[in-house]
């Protein structure tokens, strides 16, 4: 057994204290033959510190495309020649999407907009949309609307948005290679306001943007410092027309190493499978990740791409004897 896994067994599994950056790097550098042991340990950590439940979430794009920012992975930036056109979802369709999501047994519904930050029109749409969902659907509402002002943070709390997603996307040292229209620190500032407001913080990122293994470890350590309630883990799905459109996808084993390492860095967080898992991991890898530290999934489609059918994930959870977290348990 590699020394780092022995150390993690005592420190993370035993005491609930996450690995630091050097520890995460050691896990990310484990040779293939030790990957099963790392995943097994990460699974034990998740079971001990989070339990067997899996949190299921659906997401929908309220405002798609035409974003003024230049995140190099994103097909929704208006600055690239991506085929994604700008479009708004109307309130009845938003409520219908929430209903469809609730039908899968999901307890979370996240409303997302491709913006730098919300303007008055978007905040008004949010207020109407969240109220309409709450009147008709039994589901918790989360939001992801970019960078916020303090007033907007307060408004979202007032609407009853219980969790806010704002991804740091990658580590601080690599961020300027991926985004030039705003800084990592600006993102951090929104996260700080969200945290202080009492909303749950959801913050993760994308692996495979060209970061080194060391930078992946740096990212895990920075997330651990933030200590978010939830960490969504995406794997780059290279989008046509974006600056990262020709990048290779993350190799399956590296993705699994990252899942184990992020879990060992953050024993108590909700570690969610988000975009890209279908192409990076496939069906078999999806299962390996759920048995290697993942305890939440996005079911159904993403914002501009499609996922596998919700039933495929729900059947898998059933087979793995992992109960879907119920609404009563989250309220």
């Amino acid at each position, binding site marked *: 057994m590699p020394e780092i896994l022995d150390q993690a067994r005592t420190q993370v599994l035993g005491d609930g204290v996450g690995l630091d950056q050097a520890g995460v790097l050691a896990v990310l550098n484990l040779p293939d033959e030790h990957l099963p042991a790392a995943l097994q340990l990460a699974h034990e950590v998740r079971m001990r510190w989070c339990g067997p439940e899996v949190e299921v979430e659906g997401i929908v794009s309220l405002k798609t495309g035409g974003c003024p920012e230049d995140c190099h992975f994103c097909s929704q930036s208006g600055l690239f020649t991506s085929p994604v056109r700008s*479009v708004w979802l109307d309130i009845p369709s938003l409520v219908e999407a929430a209903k469809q999501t609730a039908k*899968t047994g999901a307890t979370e519904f996240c409303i997302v907009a491709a913006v730098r930050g919300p303007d008055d029109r978007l905040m008004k749409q949010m207020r109407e949309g969240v109220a309409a969902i709450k009147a008709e659907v039994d589901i918790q509402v989360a939001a992801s609307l970019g960078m916020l002002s303090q007033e907007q943070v307060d408004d979202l709390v007032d609407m009853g948005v219980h969790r806010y997603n704002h991804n740091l996307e990658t580590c601080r040292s690599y961020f300027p290679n991926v985004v030039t229209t705003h800084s990592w620190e600006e993102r951090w500032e929104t996260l700080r306001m969200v945290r202080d407001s009492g909303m749950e913080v959801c913050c993760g990122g994308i692996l495979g943007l060209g970061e080194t293994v060391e930078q992946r470890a740096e990212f895990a350590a920075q997330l651990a410092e933030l200590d978010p309630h939830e960490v969504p883990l995406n794997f780059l799905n290279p989008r046509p027309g974006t600056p990262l459109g020709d990048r290779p996808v993350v190799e399956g084993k590296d993705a699994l190493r990252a899942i184990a390492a992020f879990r060992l860095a953050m024993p108590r967080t909700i570690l969610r499978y988000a975009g890209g898992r279908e192409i990076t991991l496939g069906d078999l890898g999806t299962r390996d990740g759920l048995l290697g530290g993942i305890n939440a999934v996005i079911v159904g489609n993403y914002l501009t791409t*499609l996922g596998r059918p919700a039933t495929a994930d729900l059947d898998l959870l059933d087979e793995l004897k992992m109960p879907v977290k119920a609404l009563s348990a989250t309220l």
Partner: protein
Amino acid sequence: MTELVAAQRWCDRCGEDASTAGHESCAAARALEPPRYCPQCRRRMKVQVLPVGWSAVCVEHGESRG
């Protein structure tokens, strides 16, 4: 409807001539993506992805769903 299917002139993923070679990867990618270009006129469509399904609207040729 048959007319619509018969008129797949343009690849609905990359927007190039559908009769040329090289759209196998587009077809494979389409398993996990909605269409982006109208197959009849190659206009970029307004596409809304929903938790279940998607809709795509061409200003000229109307809406398709999947």
